């Protein structure tokens, strides 16, 4: 209804209240759901045509992992989980009727499979083969044929070189202090060496039919850089593939028995594409940033990177396009509207936007009250096109796509940026400025001459004053080469008594200065100095000597005067250097 006019009125694809393409079905800011897109799944768990939402919830602060099943806006069941869930998926286990999908929840090293919401089976990753050398060493330890120190050295050696990493037991042993080793060995030597890994990601792959409700295999990505495909009925490992890095996001297409592609975005910032019958990745896409989401649409891959970009690649790894995002991407997911054959990418951004892109074109922006951290689109309840979002604060947003809504292309950002329409902020000029300009134009030459004249006069006066200062040693840095001295004075206090500190420094490179005197000249009716004339100790080159004296202000009229400090050489009347100290007004007496 509203969608047709909505496009024109809604402008840049934003959803305003009135002409949005979405119906606000439910919003609960306190739903207390903390999860991410991989742990959301929509499934008809009871086979009654009513789709439920399965949430592997990390709990607040990731401390209370729970499995929640939502029906409509409310939680249907809730059960605690032994460990944090890393992925959830609904899949069909067997081709027989009734075709109710099973629910798989990956957590730690296991996959928990539920049927009809009842625990059904638990699959654990097969333990990794231990390092034979390590095994051997611990066997020796068990028979007390090796002392802890040697054991440590040998293990150290294995760690340096070996292909197979050490077990956590050995690693911990290597970190022990000398004293603790013996006890540790005694305690643990009987234990077998085990290495266990965990599941980092999981997805589903059709077994042999491309149908919507065909039997699917689970594909697991593990921390030890492997991809495992599990048989849906027997839960045996059908095939195992190696990756150069740990998979973070996984996408699968095709059928296991025919031909399939697995796309894994890994922690090294690369995306590897694997095909049936190859144990190693066939193509590699280097992103030069970490991927934050991976979505496959037909044969193209859309990847969000930490550089706030959406990149698109073909399934052979050729770069197609790049779209910059206004904020960091938090999560990505696929939007598939079957009735209209639409497949688009949804990206939740840190600025509280949820953007929908088809190829490069921005179709829609949904603004949410909080940053969206997980997304899911599909059939929920009995409604086909439902969008489920959870927010950073644990809120739950459910929106339904209006049946009449059509995403028009070109609704996205096109044309010049809005800033282009703004006026330039050019500073205004005043009337005075214009008058001055006119005056300059009329009498420019005269102004120039007057200015030049004054400039010369100024320079002349400056030069004269400088020469005079040099002649009468009025400057605080002595000019004579024989006695290079520097003086600066500090006055402290509020009055009537001040402390006058003279910092005298001999700036010559090597020669110490001796036989210097300091004399203060002042108005005796205003100030009294206990010592107005004193000797200066020998000045070692480079050091600054503070010479302190007290000054008492005698006047209570709030007037101040200049005290002249002269530095003299013994037997010479001309001062080496001098300083004029402007005394502050004595506040003590004035206040009193």
């Amino acid at each position, binding site marked *: 209804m509203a969608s047709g006019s909505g496009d024109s009125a809604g402008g840049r694809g934003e959803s305003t209240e009135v002409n949005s393409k979405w119906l606000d079905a439910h919003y609960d800011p306190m739903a207390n759901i903390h999860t991410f897109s991989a742990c959301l799944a929509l499934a008809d768990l009871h086979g009654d045509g009513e789709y439920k939402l399965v949430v592997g919830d*990390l709990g607040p*602060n*990731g*401390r*209370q992992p729970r499995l929640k099943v939502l029906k409509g806006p409310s939680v249907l069941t809730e*059960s*605690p*989980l*032994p*460990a944090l869930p890393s992925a959830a998926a609904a899949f069909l286990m067997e081709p027989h009727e009734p075709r109710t999908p099973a629910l798989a929840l990956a957590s*730690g090293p*296991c996959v928990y499979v539920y049927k009809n919401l009842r*625990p059904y*089976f*638990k699959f*654990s*990753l*097969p*333990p990794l083969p231990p390092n034979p050398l390590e095994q051997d060493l611990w066997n020796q330890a068990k028979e007390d044929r090796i002392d802890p120190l040697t054991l440590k050295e040998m293990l150290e050696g294995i760690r340096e070189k070996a*292909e197979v*990493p050490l077990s*956590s037991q050995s*690693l*911990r042993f290597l*970190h022990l202090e000398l004293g603790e080793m013996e006890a540790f060995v005694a*305690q643990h030597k*009987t*234990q*077998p060496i*085990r290495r266990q890994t*965990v599941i*980092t990601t999981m997805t589903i792959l059709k077994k042999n039919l491309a149908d919507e409700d065909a039997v699917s295999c689970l594909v697991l990505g593990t*921390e030890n850089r492997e991809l495992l495909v599990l048989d849906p009925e027997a839960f045996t490992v059908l095939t195992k593939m190696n990756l150069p890095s*740990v998979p*973070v996001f996984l996408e699968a297409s095709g059928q296991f028995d025919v031909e399939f592609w697995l796309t894994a975005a890994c922690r090294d910032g690369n995306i590897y594409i694997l095909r049936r019958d190859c144990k190693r990745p066939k193509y590699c896409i*280097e992103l030069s940033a*970490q991927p*934050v989401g991976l979505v496959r649409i037909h044969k193209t891959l859309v990847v969000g990177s*930490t550089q706030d970009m959406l990149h698109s690649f073909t399934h052979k790894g050729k770069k197609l*396009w*790049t779209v910059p995002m206004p904020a*960091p991407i938090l999560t990505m997911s696929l939007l598939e509207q079957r009735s209209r054959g639409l497949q688009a990418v949804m990206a939740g951004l840190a600025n509280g936007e949820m953007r929908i892109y088809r190829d490069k074109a921005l179709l829609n922006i949904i603004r949410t009250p909080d940053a969206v*951290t997980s997304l899911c689109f599909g059939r929920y309840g009995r409604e086909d096109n439902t969008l489920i979002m959870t927010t950073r604060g644990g809120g739950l947003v459910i929106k339904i796509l209006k049946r009449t809504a059509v995403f028009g292309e070109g609704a996205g950002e096109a044309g010049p*940026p809005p*800033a*282009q*329409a*703004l006026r*330039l*902020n*050019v*500073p*205004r*000029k005043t009337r005075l*400025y214009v008058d001055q300009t006119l005056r*300059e134009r*009329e009498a*420019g*030459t005269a102004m*120039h001459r007057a200015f030049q004249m004054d400039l010369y006069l100024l320079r002349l006066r400056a030069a004269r004053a400088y020469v005079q200062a040099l002649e009468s040693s009025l400057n605080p840095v002595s000019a004579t080469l024989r006695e290079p001295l520097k003086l600066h004075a500090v006055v402290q206090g509020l009055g009537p008594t001040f402390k006058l500190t003279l910092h005298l420094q001999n700036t010559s490179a090597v020669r110490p200065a001796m036989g210097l005197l300091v004399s203060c000249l002042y108005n005796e009716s205003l100030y009294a100095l206990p010592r107005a004339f004193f000797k200066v100790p020998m000045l070692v080159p480079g050091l600054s000597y503070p010479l302190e004296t007290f000054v008492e202000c005698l006047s209570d009229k709030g007037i101040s005067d200049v005290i002249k400090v002269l530095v003299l050489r013994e037997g010479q009347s001309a001062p080496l250097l001098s300083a004029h100290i402007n005394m502050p007004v004595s506040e003590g007496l004035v206040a009193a």
Partner: protein
Amino acid sequence: MAEEKAPTTTQFPGTIEPQKPRLKKEDGLAEKEPHLGPLQDVKGNAAGARPDQFVGAVRASIEEAILHSTAAESSTLDQLMITTYREEPFSYLELGKRHMTSRQADNRDLATQSNFQHIYLAPEFPILEKQNWLIHLHYIRKDYAACKALIKEQLQETQGLCEYAIYVQALMYRLEGNIQESLELFQSCAVLNPQNADNLKQVARSLFLLGKHKAAIEVYNEAAKLNQKDWEICHNLGVCYMYLKHFNKAKDQLHSALQLNRHDLTYIMLGKIHLLEGELEKAIDIYKKAVEFSPENTELLTTLGLLYLQLGIYQKAFEHLGNALTFDPTNYKAILAAGSMMQTHGDFDVALTKYRVMAYSVPESPPLWNNIGMCFFGKKKYVAAISCLKRANYLAPFDWKILYNLGLVHLTMQQYASAFHFLSAAINFQPKMGELYMLLAIALTNLDDSENASRAYAEAVALDQSNPLVNLNYAVLLYNQGEKKKALAQYQEMEKKVTLLKGSSSLDFDPEMVEMAQKMGAALQVGEALVWTKPVKDLKSRHRTTSANKSSNLQQPLGSNQALGQAMSSAAGFGKTTQLPAGAGGASQFSKPPSLPLEPEADPAEAISSEVQEQRETQKSSLAPE
């Protein structure tokens, strides 16, 4: 089943290994307490463990149980665990008990005083990588607070053995700028796992960021031993060598990086090295390849555009800059460069609209305000031009180009005294440019200081290599002072420069200048120089109405030596005649088709430099008639 019963409760919490008979009683107790059931399993299982598939499975779940037994909801959890695996062939209680039995024996010989505590601690080490995936997820979502909390927890649990947690912590330190700390953490990662090239790479990267390029190279070489075919190592080695100025090695590394995998960044670095070596053409080749590889990278497009601009290939430059702007209409560099090109062509309004975008995003850019100012200058809005230029000057008080333009605008406004100040300031910053002295001389001429003017001209002529205007203006001054011979010498000098310029490039000359030179030639009774004939025609046809007006203005009084003399005297005393400011600088504004030899300069300054030079030229030409 007999063996099953006996040992079940051996590990009742807190009890010291009891004797068998007592155990049975304990057994009953344990059953009553729902809490303890699974715990026993845990212990037993962990202790026993057989290389049996199911054992593995159970063990894993048990491990979880241990981890969570401390948690408050452990009782519910246990229930779940049990119910969940009911359908497995072995019941798990049973299994636990079995292992318990085998374990029992060991236990007893092992230590007489072995109590529960011991056994409880001994069995399981948490899987070190247990939460790596979550750490990573928080990290890539830039949720650093959550990530740090998790890392802290994880490191406590594993006693600092979790390599990946340390790794991510170090990455975050680096993002926060604590490079030294990150380096130390990466080094400890490398100790935990010396086989991992990533750790070494990050150590090297931190060293690189600390400016220790040599050390970084060493570590990268170490990493390269572990992982031969890594684009990143080659690339970063190349960058390190670049900063150490070993350009050949750097190029080798970057080329090998490109062979491994093509990345925009490598192309950019390679191009930079070529630019540092002054090989503009090679740099362009590299950037061309890069643009081919990723046609939407605005940085590449802009850089390539600017390089073409430097070479004077305007068509291509504009094409690439335009492309950059289509992909990113707010690209700072591209706007500035494209805008300055538009200004060159006189499209001031278009340039201004582009600048508006920039003025919004980068309001404190001196080059931007300089260019805006010169746009207004081109549109003859001199007051606005001065305002903008003064703002630019305020933002960058030591930029001689802005001062130059300010001098220029003030000359046009006949504010010669102000112009003098700006120009002399510019000369203080840039004492090696003939044109600046020439402008100063013009200001001085107008301030009736011909003595200093001719000194300035002399300096200008001495410094300038190729600009005929300097000589022409000098000739005019000398002529006005009645020194015909010297004027003639300058005139000939100018002709030489003109022929040289014509020979070397397809430069067009400003018609005003040409006209002025012709008059000058006539005045000096040198035969009508053939040099001019062709370009004049070219230009006339190309010129727009404004400049046509202008030239017709000038044509009126001329025709004889006398008239020329008049024109010159009026030029000298321009201030007296109350002519509109539009006269001098404005008209010629529209002239310059491609004629600017660009200085090879780095970064956004390029745009400004082109801009300034343009204005320079216009002013020069505008000065000729005076």
